[in-house]
């Protein structure tokens, strides 16, 4: 019966899992902010570019149980992927001295994963996002233990089917 606060504290007790950024400079590389003043024809639309979705390749994704203070290139296939080895309950990898236990998570049927990136080259009046990768599954990593059936991710991924039911039109009747 862990209370909200307890759960919070437990999570809060993990900061040792925070990993220093490999390249702090990259994290600073913000783009210049766009002036909001220039009103687009239809304000506030961000278009997903269809050709980018067609061109996007399957990409391996890992959701890590730690916060990495960095955005940008990482030598995943050099240092992370080769270290993955089979364990009794699934893949295991040692990452920055901590043991991670992985689990393959498949997206709900009828759903597809996209990695989207905003393309800033065209200016604020024509905002677009590009798909830079697709996925139909990813590896969910737990810290020191496998995520298991109670992982909140599994509940999250059961939301689409419930949402579909909630938002389906109601059955017509003859009244």
């Amino acid at each position: 019966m862990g209370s909200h606060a307890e759960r919070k504290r437990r999570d809060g007790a993990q900061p040792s899992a925070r990993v220093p950024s490999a390249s702090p400079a990259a994290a600073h590389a913000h783009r210049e902010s766009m002036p909001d003043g220039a009103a687009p024809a239809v304000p506030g639309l961000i278009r997903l570019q269809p050709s980018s979705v067609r061109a996007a390749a399957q990409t391996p994704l890992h959701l890590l149980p730690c916060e990495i203070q960095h955005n940008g290139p990482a030598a995943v296939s050099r240092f992370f992927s080769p270290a993955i080895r089979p364990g009794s309950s699934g893949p295991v990898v040692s990452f920055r001295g901590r043991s991670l236990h992985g689990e393959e998570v498949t997206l709900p049927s009828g759903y597809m994963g996209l990695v989207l990136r905003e393309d800033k080259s065209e200016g604020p009046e024509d905002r677009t996002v590009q798909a830079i990768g697709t996925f139909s599954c990813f590896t969910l990593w737990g810290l020191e233990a496998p995520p298991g059936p109670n992982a909140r991710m599994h509940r999250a991924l059961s939301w689409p089917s419930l949402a579909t039911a909630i938002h389906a039109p109601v059955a017509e009747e003859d009244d």
Partner: protein
Amino acid sequence: MLSHKKRPAEVHCDQWVLVAPESVTDLPGKTENGPVFTRLHNPRTGEAALYLFDTNAQQLFEVKAFHEEFHSWFIGQTVQHDGRLLLVTPVDPLFMVLYYLIKAEKEQGKFQPLDQVVIDAEFPSCSMLLQCAKLRPFLHHVTEEKEIGNKKFYKYSKEKTLKWLNKKVGQTVRALKIGNVNVGARVSSATFVPGDHGSDVKEEDYICYAHGLISEYIPKELSADLAKYLKLPELSASLPEPPLKKRKVSDGPVEAEEDYTKFNRVDLKTKKTNSKMTAAQKALARVDKSGMRSISTFFGTKAKAGK
């Protein structure tokens, strides 16, 4: 290696990991205008939230963020600090239009053409709702209609709306049962195990839970009316209510555990001070946390049950 302590919100990236229906992402070669993300009002609060229209705005979807603290992504040969998973799921456009119908009823109280009801200077793309295929054939569930000449005029009907919402609750209850969702408010096992119902789960628990889920998409007043209509014991007794109320009073990142919108909140707070925010981040900052509430309600059960 440098230790680099930064607050999460300061590490920005214009990149998102998103899960969407294949109907949205399946874009044949001829498609020129793909799906669009846009801000619309959250039908419960009226605040901004992030939505998506598919190609030609035939269908509406909401974008919800699933986020657990201390998570980051490896994506191919890159790392993404933001460990959120965005879920794109369908939304009944009738909920969105209902919000404006109720508003019009309060302000004008007369029959009006729909394009005069669904107008919003703050959310100009709300007019796209009128293109949704699943809107017009279902308007009669929530309105009285009049046809003069070739033009249709609509007026909000609370009576019809409650009937409609009752059916919505019914279909939600069926889905909860099929999905084996643990709806028991006071079930001692705090963990969600598919197929493992508490045997003491009553029909009322399902209705309460469904009412809570539906309430994410209707104004509070209507939610209270619906509770009465469903003869629910006490609104406060309905399962998802406490986390909502709690979330309202504590606006800080304290609740991170159950609050998938923490990043948005943080963005919101740093909006004025962080001049380096990009337009996308500003847009996201404006995007409402409450738009992401229904999913947190859905997933909040575990914590609630553990109390």
